[in-house]
């Protein structure tokens, strides 16, 4: 059984992205507040609170809770922030998978894997590029093996 964790680089990327986005929104609100209305100050306050919530609670909780494991017979995915979820899928029910590799994902860790079976799917969030390659090549082999077995039957 191989265990995987979301990439630390992805955590840093999310932190950076959230900070940049909230700063941009705060500047926009500050600009609006100077010329238009006081309501923009309240919006800015809301954005700041939301940013702190995301940075201090949601992201660390998500990254500490998430674990993925791939074994010969099954895929297991543990994740969740407010609702903790343990998902289990048999390798034999996997029909296809979609690997999402973003630009510069080697540095950002923003790689995702969606494993599809009939009527359901499982998402592996923020994998490092090497982990993603390892899992996809394993799944590829497993699907081919399953197809071979079906054809023989």
């Amino acid at each position, binding site marked *: 059984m191989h265990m995987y964790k979301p990439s630390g680089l992805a955590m840093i990327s999310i932190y950076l992205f959230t900070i940049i986005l909230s700063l941009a929104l705060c500047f926009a609100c500050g600009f609006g507040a100077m010329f238009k209305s006081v309501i923009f100050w309240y919006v800015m306050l809301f954005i700041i609170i939301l940013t702190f919530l995301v940075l201090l609670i949601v992201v660390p909780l998500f990254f500490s809770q998430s674990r993925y494991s791939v074994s010969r017979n099954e895929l297991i995915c543990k994740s969740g922030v407010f609702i903790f979820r343990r*998902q289990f899928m048999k390798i034999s029910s996997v029909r296809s998978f979609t690997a999402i590799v973003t630009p510069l994902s080697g540095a950002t860790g923003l790689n995702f894997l969606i494993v599809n079976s*009939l009527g359901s799917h499982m998402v592996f969030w923020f994998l490092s590029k090497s982990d993603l390659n390892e899992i996809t090549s394993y799944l590829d082999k497993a699907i081919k093996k399953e197809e071979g077995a079906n054809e023989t039957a």
Partner: protein
Amino acid sequence: MKQHKLARRVREFFRHRQHPIKIIGYTSKTMWLLLIPLVKYLVALKFDIRSWLVTNWVDILAIIAIFAFAWLRWVFVYFEIDDKSMTSHSGFFGLAATKLAFCDVTTVSVHQSSVQRLFGASSLYIDTDAKSVTKTDIVLLLPKKRAEHILDLIADENERAVKYTVESKKRSQLAFSLFFSSTFSGVIIFAGLMFEASRIVDRNIEVRLLNTAAGEISKYTRRIPYIIVVSALVIIGGWLLSFFANLMRYWHFCVTRHGRRLIVKSGIWTIRHDVMHRERINYYDITRTLLMKIFRICTVNVNCTGYGKRRSEIPTIAPITTDKEVEKTLSILMPDIKCPKATLTTGKRELWRFVCIPFFISLFVPAIRQVFIFIFPRWVSEINMIAFISSVPLVWLIIVKAAAAFSTGIGFDEGCCVLDYCRLYGFHRVVVPKAKITRVAVMQTWAQKRAGYCSIQICTENEKFKKHMVKHLPLDAAMSILRTNGLAV
């Protein structure tokens, strides 16, 4: 000889085309906007064709162009068929070809509406488990005989196989229509009718119809506010419409097990004939509401790709049956999927967990009422009435959830799994073969984590993403039962 050859070619051409009535289906809906004024002009000009042509030649040309385009589409859409497969060429100029093998077909249906009956046409729907096509794989409008021939070809059943038929009683069909009619679906049917009518005429008809009806009723009920009369009209009218639609749909309902197939026939207005491959049925679901539970009746639905997926259809195989009869019906129709006993159940200890969310939601009603009275002090009577009306379903939900605490559970045997759960107002008993389970999720909220409880979400093979959630089970027991059955580690 040449003439004979030509006749054979023409016959061959028509054999592989849809029913010519489909040409009207391919015309643009906006054509009616042109056609109705044209007919009006013709009548106004007392059928003076010459002046009619002179004044309306642009519109007439547009209509001819629309028909010519529809005819071209009809010519290019064709199908080929052999002993084991079928290819349908569809889309513009027949560019998209869909080929499917008969052995992969899950459901094949022939539906004939009363309008189609006038022209001897019927719709043929063929579905497979292929997930790349979310809609029906092949849809064709064919002459009735041709459609039935293709259905027989696909069903390809051994004639000597024994047939087991379950026919539902008229009384049951009436009860089924009563229980499964809802204002919401009636309003959708009405809105659909109005939408189609407004595309042809204009929206005024809808407004005029509602206002006239509300005006007539409010003459006799002067003391009731106008808004309440309109709401009541929509609710009662919608429900009645839905009731009659259901009655029409499920009258003469009968199911037959014939070899590996399940054949369902029903309907008066639209005559339906569906054939399902039994091995491709993903699960069956014994559904009931609280009232049905009290009267010990239920309905049995199945999940099979293509069956009951068209608008306003319910994928049922037993519209209404008593709790006593359900076992017998299922042993006749689905002998391979046997219902195991639920070994892990909830009870009195979990009552508060089931009831708490609807209870807290229902507390919002008086609070929101106070806020609205503060904002709109003149509308107190209307606000009180709306608050009362909205609190009724919430109180009912609390009662339903309290009952759910005593009818939730999960159980396995060697081949199948049973899931007893309640979603909103409906109670479900889903029986699914273990091989059809594709994903299991064990979920815990913070409160559940502290108390050692969990909810189990099970997904099965399905055309869409659909989950069955069994809530508030003790975590350790749930994990142990899942592990024993190879569904968790």
